[in-house]
């Protein structure tokens, strides 16, 4: 589904990704871990198409298509979803209105008819239960005045609505207490399917107790330096990252 090879990216003058390789197949959950500043969030941003980053080399194929050639909205329409580490507040636009616009733009891109109000509300009710989100939150301005937990839950709700092929969760666990973490993880797990893949970007192993990955990768200095099964996450939790750094050096 996703094939990243030798990806290099800079922000300003600073080289962040230095030849990153990653293969993700449908149905898989990949965890990307690594110390601060390794390039984890950069990878998530580059995949979503954030313009602050400049890709200077390598390639990213998504279902065989050149992802790097697409605008962020095209990537979304092709089935990529980024759950933001810091969801942005959009004053004056309700979650409902926002999602309706997003869904119908994506449907338009795919040559499908827009959802009517009834279809949309039905879908929304169904997905609201999935992440245990309240109707009143959805009528408010998107993310404005939301608590940290509400913002992250709203991200997962949007993901449930848009049903992406590839979901990228960028530090979704940051700022969440254990209850909120569980609710968010449950939402993600309910969306797991053989057709979809997930990349979980996280600093801590904690989230991986709830979202169990098939593969764990360690990102360090802009490259994936070690990959392994889920047990690798426990090893990292126990020993920290220093032994990896030593191994690479």
């Amino acid at each position, binding site marked *: 589904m996703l094939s990243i090879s030798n990806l290099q990216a800079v922000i300003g003058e600073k080289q962040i990704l230095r030849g990153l390789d990653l293969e993700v197949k449908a149905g898989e959950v990949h965890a990307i871990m690594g110390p601060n500043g390794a390039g984890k969030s950069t990878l998530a941003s580059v995949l*979503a*198409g*954030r*313009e602050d980053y400049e890709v200077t080399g390598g390639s990213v194929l998504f279902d065989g298509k050149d992802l790097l050639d697409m*605008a*962020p*909205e095209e*990537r*979304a*329409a092709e089935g990529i*979803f*980024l759950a*933001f580490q810091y*969801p*942005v*507040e*959009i*004053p*004056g*636009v309700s979650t409902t209105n*926002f*999602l309706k*616009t*997003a*869904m119908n*733009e*994506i449907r338009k*891109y795919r040559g499908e008819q827009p959802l009517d109000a009834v279809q949309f509300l039905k879908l929304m009710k169904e997905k609201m239960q999935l992440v245990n989100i309240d109707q009143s939150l959805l009528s408010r*301005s998107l993310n404005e005045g939301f608590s940290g937990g509400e913002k992250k839950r709203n991200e997962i709700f*949007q993901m449930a609505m*848009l049903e992406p092929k590839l979901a990228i969760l960028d530090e979704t666990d940051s700022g969440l207490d254990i209850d909120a973490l569980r609710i968010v993880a449950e939402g993600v797990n309910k969306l797991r399917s053989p057709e979809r893949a997930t990349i979980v970007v996280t600093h801590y192993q904690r989230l991986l107790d709830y979202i169990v990955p098939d593969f764990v990768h360690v990102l360090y200095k802009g490259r994936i330096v070690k990959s392994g099964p889920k047990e690798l996450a426990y090893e990292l939790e126990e020993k920290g990252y220093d032994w990896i750094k030593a191994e690479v050096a």
Partner: protein
Amino acid sequence: MTPTYESYTDFKNQLLTAFREGEERLNGESKTALHQVRRQALTAFDQLGFPTIRHEEWKYSNVNSLIKQRFTIDGTSTLTADELSSLEIPNLEGNVLYFVNGHYQAEMSHIVSPADQVQIGSLADSIKADPDGVGAHFARYADYKDSAFTALNTALATDGVVIRVPANAQVEQPIILRFISDARVNNVASQPRNLILVGKNAEVTVTESFRTLGDNSSFVNIVTEISLDRDARMQYYKVQDETNQAYHIGTTQVHQTDNSHFYAATVTLNGNFVRNNLNIVLNGQYAEAFMYGLYMPNGRQHVDNHTLVDHAMPNSYSNELYKGILDDSGTGVFNGKIFVRPDAQKTNAYQSCKNVVLSPNATMNTKPQLEIYADDVKCSHGTTTGQLNDEALFYMRSRGIPKDEARTLLLYAFAQDVLSQIKIQPIRDYLEGVITAKLTK
């Protein structure tokens, strides 16, 4: 032979001459108190002259290109009811009054509210029927001694509307005043004058809407005087959608007494040069005034909003929010003055002006002015001018919303704080239509 309007060497001279010629045609009317006020106003206009940018209140708004032009000022128009229908606001119900080049058009207008709720008449008719009654209020609120344009209007205004709402009346249907400049044949100038008197514990909603037809220049110099008796409530909307050859200078002067509530929303969508003065005197305890504004100059449009709130009595409240979206080489001015007099203890006054600048060539000038002479007051003001939030744009695009749609949605949301104040749905629909068209251009 009467000279054609192009032959005047000077706009001011043309206006002064017009007054004197008009005066010669008057019979007994020239002796009335009202006419004496007009004469004083003309003298004031003559002495003040048109303001230049050296005048502090006109620093950012240069009227040079206006006064260099020549206009017909006799108010004639060949506009027919059929032609007017192209300007209709769909589904609009209520008292809809049309004024073409400043003159009331009875046959195109509909007054539906019963006379025990509200009396609505043209200024021309009202002066004829009751010169002293009109004279008792005319120019009593809007000061012409310091303002050339108000003085000019006071001297030359012959038509407009007089609205009287009796005590305790609830005017159920809104009143919509539609000022149409017919500039299809030549440059036209008009001086409409409105007087709105809202009685004790009465309530009314009045909208002023401005449109221009044709490609020649138009100039509207309007003055609206509003007086709210105690416990009265009024919603006042000013809606401007004129051409890129249109000049508009307007003063709305509001006088409030005890426990009266005034809600204003000024929405400027299009116009070449727009200056709105909204002056409110809170001359009563527990009087409250709310002012909202939205302006969106693009191209070479210029929109200037001046507000003045004069807290003259204790325990009064004012709150204003103005929002601007500026594109291309558009320019905007916001000048908000709050005056708290020594007696006006326990005043609460809030002011905020927020702007989004979409182009490096667009300019916004903001100037809050607080003059506070009482010591137990709460006042705050804030202005922001910035660009569209890139993070928000990326967030929306990452959900599949294309860049242009995302931009429109964000700006539209930005405007909603002001638009949502307008409680007449057909007018809101009409405004939203024009705004959407403008944002997606």
